[in-house]
């Protein structure tokens, strides 16, 4: 074995040198050896009496294709991975050379791909943050939500009461554990005297940690017995962030945390990676459900079957389908309806995955994602059409090169690999260049602020999943639109490829293919532009719209007397005292209370206008509304059109009254006067006393929505937001107001302390700007791509017809004739594309109308702007190549061939 080993070693050393020599571009030993063979064979042939040319030719003939022999020998010499790397390196170098030779082509392709991937990565990151990112638990796909479905206009949610949860738990067999979660919002403090911060926590059943599959990093979860006796076990598990906020003491276990004024013993700290049981809830702490009635001071939380406040989650058993689980839930729902007719009538139990919940609960996000997806897909399609067009235009050139390489003995597999390397190189370049683009869009999206201390804040990240997504997109598009045509060219018939060169007959199929490509590109550019202009107008319209509510000189804060377990009377007294004192404060012009902020939320209220006929089985409808104090309309500048607003005299002892908005009035009493009419509001007959002008209630660009206002004094205990109109700078009033609240009760939990100016800019202006910028950028990208693509395709088709033009001119056509012909023929697919695009836009508009809360429509004005613009661009794209064609000297054109 000795000599063999020695041979091996020298061989490896030789190979190493050879591999290095590739970088220095020295002739390598294999080529030298083959060269040696050729020389010897030639010499031999000469001796046999051949002429020198004959001799050299015969030697080559004897050896076979030099390129392939060299390659195969190298491959045999190295075997395994190094050849592979070597070949990859060679393919890459060849690819780079090919690209460098055609910089305009390469740049256009790469930039097109960058636009396509960049737009899609940004979209993906957005969608990921808002809807798609799975729960941070093991096997998140198994988690489902179970409960009764409630719908409110466009919104829908699934809730369960504690008693129903117990029944479902007992009767169901489809789940591996079911846990119930209730949100509890209270002040939490490290000790009695430190200031409490209002946080959302969760009251959970003891099996919560097992069902989620996530256990505390420090300490433990709840023991089953800690969730059995009401109010006995005041134990608490903190979130990682809360623990950090309390000083990250590793010896925190056994210490006390004060929540809502009750002392809890810390038994655990959750891991940092666990943000919460669903996308919206990021609990700061967890307590056993048995402590829930204690902290709320309301035994109904556990005892009332109609207290729909819990989210029930579980893991679907393996081999059980959603459909099977649903069938079981239907049976349980029927049982519950039989046993508890008053609370469970018509309460269908449903099952939903997290993604379904995210989509159902966040129509605004979903719609935003849908719009962004549509737009970025359109950008991608236009970009791919560009790449496909460019590759098509280069196909004849390419097929010549490929024929040449086939002729000197390159194998088909080898060529395909070469083409694959080139495509991947291009995809990589496009993908990599797309990332900064994506990053910029993400930075833009990150500017969006969430003006709520307790709100869920989507975390936008350019993470590995987004990167992977971008590469898949780029590779997919290049392979689909680049490699398949390339492989087809390897089937080239050598003889015809050489003979006809670049003047190969275009052929009917190819002609159609190109026209189709052009039409697709125009169609999707049109969709992209219409959607962009439409969305832009919707937001820009909102931003410059007539003022629907006052946006300045208001200081706001939200109060939470429930956090102190106030009784209804205590709370009413507190609010009255607050209003009186705030109004007396120097610098305050007016003060009011409301459960909702403009464009920021609403209360679901069941209404049934007297005499209105609902469909059979339905007795009321859920409408949006808020509970307000007197002077709310004055403070927020919402005009009362008719009748009166809410007054301080509308109390629990006076007749029930409500003020409705224009849309609700028009909806139920078209062309009638609703004032004085009666309406069932949460089951009580109430008189309409006024009509308020429409405002924005949920989202800045929502369409007109039914809305009603109810005096807060006529409904039970609530958390209310104080609005204080200020004479001077509203930010300057924040501190005096905070102090005033502390003077009334130092322990009163207060949050969302902010000025209307900040709130409005975060809630409306910034979102509007960001969305318009992003959508505008996408539209611009689409336009740029369309311009490049149209120009490339037009130039190509003109250049292919140089000879034909020459002939036409030689037989007497003048320049104008030629130009008209070229432009006319170019415009046919463009016009077809515009027609298709208009149809597609109409379809997209339909989609938007059904899913997006926009009070605007794609009007004729949008179409009227976009279609002529595209036509103009297409004309320009056709004009320049056509002019070039017309300037062709017929003689040169003919001789050229």
């Amino acid at each position: 074995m000795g000599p063999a080993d020695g041979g091996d070693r020298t061989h490896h050393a030789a190979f190493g040198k050879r591999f290095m020599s590739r970088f220095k571009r020295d002739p390598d030993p294999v080529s030298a050896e083959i060269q040696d063979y050729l020389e010897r064979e030639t010499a031999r042939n000469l001796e046999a009496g051949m002429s020198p040319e004959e001799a050299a030719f015969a030697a080559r003939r004897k050896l076979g294709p030099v390129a392939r022999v060299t390659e195969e020998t190298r491959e045999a010499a190295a075997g395994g991975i190094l050849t592979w790397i070597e070949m990859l390196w060679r393919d890459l170098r060849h690819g780079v050379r090919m690209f460098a030779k055609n910089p305009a082509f390469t740049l256009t392709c790469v930039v097109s791909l960058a636009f396509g991937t960049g737009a899609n990565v940004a979209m993906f990151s957005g969608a990921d943050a808002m809807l798609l990112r799975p729960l941070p638990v093991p096997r998140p796909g198994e988690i489902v939500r179970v409960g009764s479905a409630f719908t409110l206009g466009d919104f829908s949610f699934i809730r369960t009461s504690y008693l129903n949860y117990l029944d479902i738990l007992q009767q169901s067999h489809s789940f591996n554990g079911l846990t119930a979660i209730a949100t509890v919002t209270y002040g939490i403090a490290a000790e009695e005297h430190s200031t409490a911060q209002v946080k959302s926590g969760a009251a959970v059943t003891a099996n919560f940690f097992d069902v989620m599959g996530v256990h505390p990093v420090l300490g433990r979860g709840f023991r089953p017995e800690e969730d059995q006796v009401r109010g006995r076990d005041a134990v608490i598990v903190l979130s990682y962030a809360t623990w950090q906020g309390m000083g990250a003491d590793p010896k925190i276990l056994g210490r006390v945390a004060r929540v809502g004024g009750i002392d809890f013993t810390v038994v655990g700290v959750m891991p940092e990676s666990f943000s919460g049981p669903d996308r919206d809830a990021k609990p700061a702490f967890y307590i056993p459900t048995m402590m829930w009635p204690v902290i709320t001071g309301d035994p109904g939380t556990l005892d009332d079957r109609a207290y729909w406040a819990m989210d029930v989650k579980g893991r679907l058993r393996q081999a059980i389908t959603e459909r099977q689980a649903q069938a079981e839930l239907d049976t349980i729902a029927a049982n519950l309806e039989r046993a508890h007719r008053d609370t469970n009538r018509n309460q269908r139990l449903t099952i939903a995955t997290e993604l379904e919940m995210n989509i159902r609960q966040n129509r605004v996000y979903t719609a935003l994602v849908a719009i962004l997806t549509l737009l970025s897909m359109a950008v991608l399609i236009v970009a791919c059409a560009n790449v496909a067009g460019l590759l098509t235009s280069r196909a004849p050139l390419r097929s010549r090169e490929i024929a040449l390489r086939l002729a000197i003995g390159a194998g088909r597999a080898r060529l395909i690999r070469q083409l694959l390397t080139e495509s991947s190189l291009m995809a990589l370049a496009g993908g990599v260049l797309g990332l900064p683009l994506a990053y910029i869009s993400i930075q833009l999206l990150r500017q969006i602020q969430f003006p709520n201390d307790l709100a869920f804040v989507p975390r936008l990240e350019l993470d590995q999943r987004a990167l992977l997504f971008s590469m898949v997109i780029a590779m997919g598009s290049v392979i689909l639109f680049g490699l398949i045509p390339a492989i087809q060219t390897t089937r080239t018939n050598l003889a015809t490829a050489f003979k006809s060169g670049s003047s190969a007959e275009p052929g009917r199929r190819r002609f159609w293919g190109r026209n189709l490509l052009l039409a697709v590109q125009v169609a999707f550019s049109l969709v992209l532009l219409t959607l962009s202009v439409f969305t832009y107008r919707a937001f820009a319209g909102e931003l410059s719209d007539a003022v629907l509510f006052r946006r300045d000189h208001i200081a706001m804060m939200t109060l939470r007397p429930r956090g102190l377990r106030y009784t209804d009377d205590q709370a009413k007294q507190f609010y009255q005292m607050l209003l009186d004192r705030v109004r007396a404060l120097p610098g305050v012009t007016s003060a009011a209370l409301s459960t909702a902020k403009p464009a920021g939320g609403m209360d679901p209220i069941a209404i049934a206008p007297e005499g209105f006929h609902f469909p059979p089985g339905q007795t009321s409808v859920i409408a949006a509304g808020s509970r307000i104090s007197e002077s709310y309309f004055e403070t927020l500048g919402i005009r009362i059109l008719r009748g009166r607003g809410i007054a301080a005299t509308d109390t629990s002892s006076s007749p029930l009254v409500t003020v409705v908005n224009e849309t609700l009035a028009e909806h139920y009493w078209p062309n009638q006067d609703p004032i004085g009419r009666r309406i069932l509001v949460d089951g009580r007959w109430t008189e309409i006393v006024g009509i308020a002008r429409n405002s924005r209630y949920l989202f800045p660009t929502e369409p007109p929505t039914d809305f009603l206002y109810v005096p807060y004094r006529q409904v039970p205990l609530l958390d209310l937001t104080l609005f204080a109109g200020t004479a001077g700078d509203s930010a300057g009033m924040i501190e005096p107001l905070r102090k005033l609240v502390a003077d009334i009760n130092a322990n009163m939990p207060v949050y969302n302390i902010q000025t209307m100016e900040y709130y409005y800019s975060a809630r409306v202006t910034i979102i509007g700007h960001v969305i318009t910028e992003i959508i505008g950028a996408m539209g611009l990208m689409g336009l740029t791509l369309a311009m490049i693509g149209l120009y490339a395709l037009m130039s190509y088709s003109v250049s292919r017809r140089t000879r034909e033009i020459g002939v036409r001119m030689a037989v007497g056509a003048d320049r104008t004739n030629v130009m008209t012909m070229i432009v006319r023929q170019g415009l046919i697919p463009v016009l077809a594309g515009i027609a298709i695009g208009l149809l597609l836009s109409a379809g997209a508009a339909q989609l938007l109308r059904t899913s997006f809360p926009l009070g605007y429509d794609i009007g004729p004005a949008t179409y009227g702007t976009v279609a002529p613009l595209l036509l103009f661009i297409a004309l320009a794209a056709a004009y320049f190549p056509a002019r070039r064609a017309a300037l062709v000297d017929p003689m040169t054109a003919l001789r050229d061939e």
Partner: protein
Amino acid sequence: MSTEPNSDRVELLQGTLDMLILRTLLFGPAHGHAIAHAIEQGSADVLQVEHGSLYPALHRLVRQGLLAAKDGISENNRKAKFYRLTPKGCKHLLNESSKWDRLTEAIGRIMRPSESGS
């Protein structure tokens, strides 16, 4: 691709080229060109060796340790790469030859039963 098949020549069976190379080198080290012609001439020009396929085979054998390669000077004073058998190669050749004998005998019996039966 480049050489046209010649009717009175026989194309090599897959795998037999390796054995022929080893057999040729039994007489001493040689360079590629010499090996190619030795095989051709040894078979009285009946066997058609595509010379191009010789080089990958040589390098494969080197990699398998059956041959060793060394730069040397050829008879006409030119630099060339010489191949020689390694002991492992010798052993391999012996094995292959006996396998080959058995194979040809078996095929012969099938093709010409009357002659081999005696």
